Each structure stands twice: as C-alpha cells, then as structure tokens.
C-alpha cells in the first residue's frame, strides 16, 4: 500500500471504480493506463485495486480494459443536500486545507443557459426550394480579413483596389488557440495535419511554434500573447495570420501560467525559455494599456511582417464587448475573435472560469449588430469561439453574424478527451494535455488527425444539409441572416439582444 488516505485533507471521492473481479484477467492494462495512480496491482494478492480518491473519472481504464471489468460511476455526495451550498462545500474545504486557490480546466461547467439551444433554424417549404447538398453545389469557402466597402477597376477591367491580405478557409471552422505546452506535441501535430487536409487553420496558441510544425505553414495562425513566448520574426512569418490574444473566454482578464514542471525540454525550446521555469503570461500585454496601444501593437506586427498578414485580435466576451469590438476594429484589427465564457482552458482559477464573462451567443449578436450600425462590419471578419459544440452551433453562429468559428474543446473531444477537467495537472490520461512523453504517445497523430478530418468534414456536410434546407448554397448568404433563426423559451430582452424573432412569428 503505497498511499494512505488522510482525513486532514479529505474530501469525498467523486467517482466509484467498480471492478468485476470475476471478469478481471489481471492483464494490468488499466494499471499501466491510469496516470493518476488511482489503480494498482498487488502481486502478493494477485489483485487489481483502486484508490477512488485519486480517480478523476477520465474513463481511460474502462476504455482500455479488454474484458469490460471496470465501470466508473459518479459517487453521490455524502452531504445532506442543500441547494445554496451544494457544489461549494468541497471547494471551500480544499482552500482551507491547502491554502491555495483551485485551478481548473476545460470550459465553465456551471448550468448557465446555453442560447444555442434556444434558437431554431429555418427550412424552405414550397415557396423556395430546399437544395440537395449531396448533388448541388454548396459553398462553404470563407475569406477572413478586412474588406473594402467596394472595389474599383482599371480601364482594362482588372482590379484597381488592392485587397488587404486575407486567409482562405474551405470551411468556416478553425481550431482555436491551444498552445504547445497546454497540449501535447502529438495533438498539435494532429491539429496541423487536419487543418492542412481540410483547408483551414489551427492556432499555435501563445506557446510559440515548434520547429517541426513550421511545416504547417499555410495552415497556421500564430498567436502573440502577453508572455511573448517564442515570438520572433520567423515565427511571425510562418503564420498566415497573427492573432493578438487580449483575452480568453475561460479566463478573461487573467494571464496564463504554465507551471515549471510542464516546461519540458521541447517546450523550453519552443517557448525559448529555460526548462523547469514557470512560464508566466501577464494579465495584460504590458505594451497595451489602452486602445491606442493596441493599435500600436497591431501596426507593429503589420510593420514586422510588411503588411502581408491579417491581424486578429482575440478578446473575451465581456459585458461591454460590443464597444470593445468597435474600438478593436478602429484600432486596425482585420479580424476579431470573440471567445465566450464557455471556452476551454488548460488552467484557470476556478473562480474566474466560472464567473467571469458572458455567453458567446449574446456577445456575437451585439458585436455584429454594433459593427453594422457603425458601418464598419465590412472592415473586419468575426470569429466566434467558446462553446461551439456541434455543426448547428456553427450555423447559428454564422446566422447571428460570425464569419467563422473557432473550436477547441470539440476538437479535443474528437481525439479522445473525456472532459475529466484535469488538463491543469499535466497528467492527461488520454495524452492530450500533457507533456509527459510517455502519456503523449496515447494520441496517435494519424488516428487523431483522421478523426478531426472526419469531424470537420461531417460538420461541413451537416452545415451544407442545413443550408440546403434553408435554400442557401453559399455560406455568405447565411452570414448575419438572423431571419433563419427563431427563439424558443427566451425573454423579449434576450430576443432583442440576439436580434431574432420568437418561433411562430
């Protein structure tokens, strides 16, 4: 017995590991797979045991067990139910026991309303035809970047207007910023491969770009965050676009913190910082304390890349997001990326993740509307992210006004993530959010990229199906087309903000 529970720091286990000893063949596959030391084999007793207190419910053991001997179950809380305290008891105890604030990962898990689920899509009936996407052309190609209000031509009919740089997407879905550091090498590899195959982009996140991944040039967006890790000219040059990260949905107003133990040799090389040292991203960019400073940074990047790349500014969805967005556009951003509060993270203080920010649906609606009112919507493309779970979320986002969406958690789920929310521990049993070279092997880039490609292709097909149902064969005709959305179960005010009619009207 290598470990013994101690009541001093006890909180009830979240999961029960139920093991059918009659089926168990002692192959010990589960023991090898548990990266949280919750499973062990006792040679003397020839038995596999569990420490449930250490189980995080990642389900890796159950997935790998060849004889289905393992069932992971959520354990009932032992406490007497109390509505207002329920969900706070253990957190409070942990703070008291360890003297630190809990860090969590993945997206906000509180039951705030999901507006996507209150919006319904339209379909054509009789008066205009629905289109069969399997046999008729159906276009999802999307260009992101600043567009002029109109184009001018030379006498010979060729273009006089010089368009500013754009990025071209075959489908309006990109992989959102997830850094090498938060994610394992193989996951980045998978995202890059999939983006390349499908014709979209993945985002390096703030951790720099490993030399090996320069091969994804043409399908990568590079991020410049406050920590400026691994940011230098060659890095900027690889990106098809450069994203300035001001905020992130899961932790608006909070910097990043990659603990020293995750700063492995390759991470250290990629981020260009010493191994084992904390990688601290300050909360703000310390050269951006005001909107004109943002303009300064945007143009610094444009100057550094000689105006060859669109600049994305990523902001978290917060209360006055519309006004902020307007300022960002006027500061010279070519693309604005808005991240809703359900967006994922590798690590965020729980209090921040669960309480700061607003839903992407509302933020997107107000930003799009505000930019249109100001007549500057054409000057910028909008990327919505943070809680896009399915293809119809994408359709709804575009109908609300997005040009494209970012998916993060959805991509990770596709390659194995079970949302056990342990990214911050670096022990991801699925090999996704870990730098342990042994664990990260669990993601096979061939399999994972295949799954991502499947996901994107299927979503694309689903989007086409829905567009076909609406009688639209080009994605630009869906953009901002809020008439194709109707609300169910929303208040007047919600509908006003979303700019949509109630179902039936």
């Amino acid at each position: 017995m290598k470990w013994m529970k101690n009541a001093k720091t006890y909180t009830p286990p979240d999961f029960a590991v139920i093991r059918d000893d009659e089926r168990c063949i002692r192959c010990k596959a589960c023991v090898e797979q548990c990266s949280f030391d919750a499973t062990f084999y006792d040679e003397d007793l020839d038995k596999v045991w569990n420490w449930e207190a250490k189980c995080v419910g990642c389900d890796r053991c159950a997935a790998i067990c060849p004889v289905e001997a393992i069932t992971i179950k959520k354990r009932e809380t032992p406490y007497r139910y109390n509505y207002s305290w329920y969900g706070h008891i253990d957190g409070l105890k942990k703070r008291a026991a360890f003297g630190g604030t809990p860090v969590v990962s993945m997206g906000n898990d509180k039951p705030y309303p999901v507006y996507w689920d209150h919006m319904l899509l339209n379909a054509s009936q009789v008066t205009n035809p629905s289109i069969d996407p399997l046999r008729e052309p159906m276009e999802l190609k999307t260009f992101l970047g600043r567009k002029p209000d109109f184009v001018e031509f030379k006498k010979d009919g060729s273009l006089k207007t010089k368009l500013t740089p754009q990025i071209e997407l075959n489908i309006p879905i990109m992989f959102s910023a997830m850094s090498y550091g938060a994610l394992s090498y193989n996951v980045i590899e998978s995202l890059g491969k999939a983006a390349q195959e499908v014709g979209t982009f993945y985002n390096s996140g703030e951790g720099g770009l490993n030399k090996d991944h320069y091969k994804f040039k043409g399908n990568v967006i590079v991020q410049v965050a406050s920590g400026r890790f691994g940011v230098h000219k060659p890095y900027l040059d690889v990106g098809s676009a450069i994203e300035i990260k001001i905020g992130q949905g899961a932790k608006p107003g909070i910097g990043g913190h990659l603990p020293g133990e995750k700063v492995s040799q390759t991470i250290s090389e990629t981020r260009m910082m010493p191994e084992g040292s904390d990688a601290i991203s300050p909360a703000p960019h310390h050269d951006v304390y005001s909107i004109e400073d943002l303009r300064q940074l945007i143009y610094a990047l444009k100057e550094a890349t000689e105006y060859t790349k669109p600049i994305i500014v990523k902001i978290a969805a917060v209360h006055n997001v519309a006004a902020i967005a307007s300022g960002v556009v006027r500061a010279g951003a070519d693309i604005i990326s808005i991240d809703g509060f359900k967006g994922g993270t590798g690590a965020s203080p729980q209090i921040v993740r669960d309480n700061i920010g607003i839903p992407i649906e509302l933020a997107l609606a107000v930003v799009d509307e505000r930019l249109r009112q100001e007549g500057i919507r054409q000057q910028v493309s909008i990327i919505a992210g943070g809680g896009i779970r399915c293809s119809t979320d994408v359709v709804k986002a575009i109908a609300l006004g997005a040009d494209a969406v970012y998916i993060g958690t959805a991509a990770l789920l596709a390659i194995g993530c079970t949302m056990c929310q342990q990214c911050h521990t670096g022990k991801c049993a699925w090999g996704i959010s870990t730098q342990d070279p042994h664990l990260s092997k669990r993601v096979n880039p061939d399999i994972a990229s295949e799954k991502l490609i499947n996901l994107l292709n299927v979503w694309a097909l689903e989007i086409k199906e829905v567009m076909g149902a609406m009688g639209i064969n080009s994605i630009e005709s869906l953009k901002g087309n809020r008439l194709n959305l109707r609300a169910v179960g929303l208040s007047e005010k919600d509908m006003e903000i979303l700019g949509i009619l109630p179902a039936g009207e």
Partner: protein
Amino acid sequence: MELSKDISGCGIAGFINTDGTLTSGIDIADSINLMKERGNGLGAGFAAYGIYPDFKEYYALHIMYDNEQSRKNTEAYLDRKLHIEQHGGMPTRIINKKRPIFFVYFVEPREQSTKAESEEFQSREADEFIVKLTMHINEKIDGAYVVSSGKNMGVFKGVGYPEEIANLFRIDEYKAYMWTAHNRFPTNTPGWWGGAHPFSLLDWSVVHNGEISSYGANKRYLEMYRYKCTQKTDTEVIAYLLDLIIRKHKFPLEKIGDIFSAPLWSEINKMQKKDKEFHTALRMVYGSALLNGPFSILVGFKGGIFGLNDRIKLRPLVAAKKGSTVYMASEESAIRYIVKDLDEVWMPDAGKPVIAKLTEEAYKNVY
C-alpha cells in the same frame, strides 16, 4: 422589429425597344396576362420607362396614400423639401374595389430652408436626396408609400390580377420604350398594395420571381449602409443593392451578375489568374450581396433592362429578340403571344445577365 419577409411565387415579363420607339402598355399587359397561372390575383404591377418626356428633367414620384390625411401629411413634407413642378392624381379607371389613392409629383430637390434640415439630409447630391426622402416617407409617414421615384419612368402596381391593375392605371394609354411586368402569387402580406412588384428606387425597378433565401443577410448588409428595408418583401433588397453597388460604388452594371449570382468557387478556381482575382475579390467584398436562393429578375434602369437568374438556375427565364426589341419573360409563350415570328429565342445561362440598352442615339432622344 421588421424582420419578416414576403414569400411569393410569380411570373415576370418585359421588353425594350432599343431604338427608343415608344409603345403602349397593351402588349406588356397581354404578355403578363398570359401567365395567369403564375399569379393568384393578389398582386401585379408594371414599370414603364420613357413615359414622361415632358417632365424628363424631374423626378417623377408615384406615391400611394391610404387616405387623405396621409396625403396631406406627405404633401406638407414634400413642400418643405422639394420644388414641385407639377402634380396631380394619377389617371385611373373606376374599379369596384377598395384601393389606395395614387398621386404623381414631378419634383426636384431644392435648397433647404434650415440648416438643421440640411444636415438631416447630409448629402446634397440629388439622387441621394431623393433616396433619403423616399426612405423617410416610407418609414416615417403613416399611410404613405413611394411607389417609384425615377425620372421619366413610373411604376404602377397593386393588389389584383395584371389585367385589373393595367385597367386601373390605364396603362394602355402610356407610351414607353421599355416595359416590365409582374404577376404575383403571394403567401404573405397579400392585402398590401405596396407589396406588389415592381419595386423601384430612383430609376431602378425590379420584378422578381422566386425567393431570396439570403434576404436576411442582404438586408443586414444594406442596413449597414443606411438602407431601410420597410416593404416586407425580399425584392426591395435587389433595388437597394443595385443602388448601392451601381450608383454609389460605381460598379459596372454589366458585371452585376458576378455579384448577385457569383460564380461558384469550383468555377472560379478554373479561371485564368486575372479573372480569378476579379471574382475572388468580388466574392470577398460583396459576399453579403450575393443573392441566394431561387430567383429570376428583370431590372429596369435608365436606358436599359437586364434579366438575371440565380446561379444554379432554380427559376425560369427566356429571352428573345425581334428586330431592335429584346424580350424577356418567365415563359416563352408570354413573348410568343405578343410577337409571332421572333428572330431569336434563347435561355440565358444561370448567373449570366442578359442586358439590353437603348442605342446611343435613342438614349439621347429619350433623355
């Protein structure tokens, strides 16, 4: 919230005498009447170009009023804003049906009386002024609706079968070098006279068969440029888009099909570099002006007409030629009915506009 749009099926027809010959409205009425099956008696209309040669310098406002009060309110407003050269009730025949009243005003913008008013209509450009005035009346004055506002042209439309509308407005008595007509099959807002086609703004007039599935996207795009879509129908976005793109952005009319019915990416990818650049830029910049969904339209403009299909040809359009006259309609029969021996008949390709214009000489004569 004015978000809903009209849904309707339709028939369309139109022709232009490119030599500038003026012909009466009898032919166009016959032509559109032939396609009775395409309408349901709940809307029809005509646009005629070259009908007011005596007032060709002036904007001809066709205004429809629900009642006398709305007329008074409107005229008070017009008096403030415009020099009215001439005005009066439009000639109509008596019909046994409740109908709005129609007036025509030949006007030109005038110096504004107050500074505040000058600022209200920021632009001093006459066309822009008329557009804003039209938008203002349609949106702000109850019971008044500007049917058309171009020069030397007019729109006649209402609830009824084409023959009823033709009869009401005595269109047999007008002489025009170009006519378009519409027969409507609405499923929404059927009782509203303003909802009939053609839709018109300045010299633009649009008759439309089909439905613009991208209406929501087009509408919000236009709203960004201060157009107000008030008429509860998708067709008006076409008129406004034309106004924005051709008049304001100075985009060549010949290429409007490349925006409205933009080529598919698969086709663009096959093009030569220059064309590829051109079309890619258009789709990038004017993506929100792409007309999606099934449509065929006939658009009248100063000195010409064009017909256009959606890019995968979900609605019908036939074009024909006889001498110097070019015809377009939803069905060939509608043309054959008024001209027996056509020189040429063809089906326009999807997304490729058919444009017919007055000869230069004729243009000089008419305008």
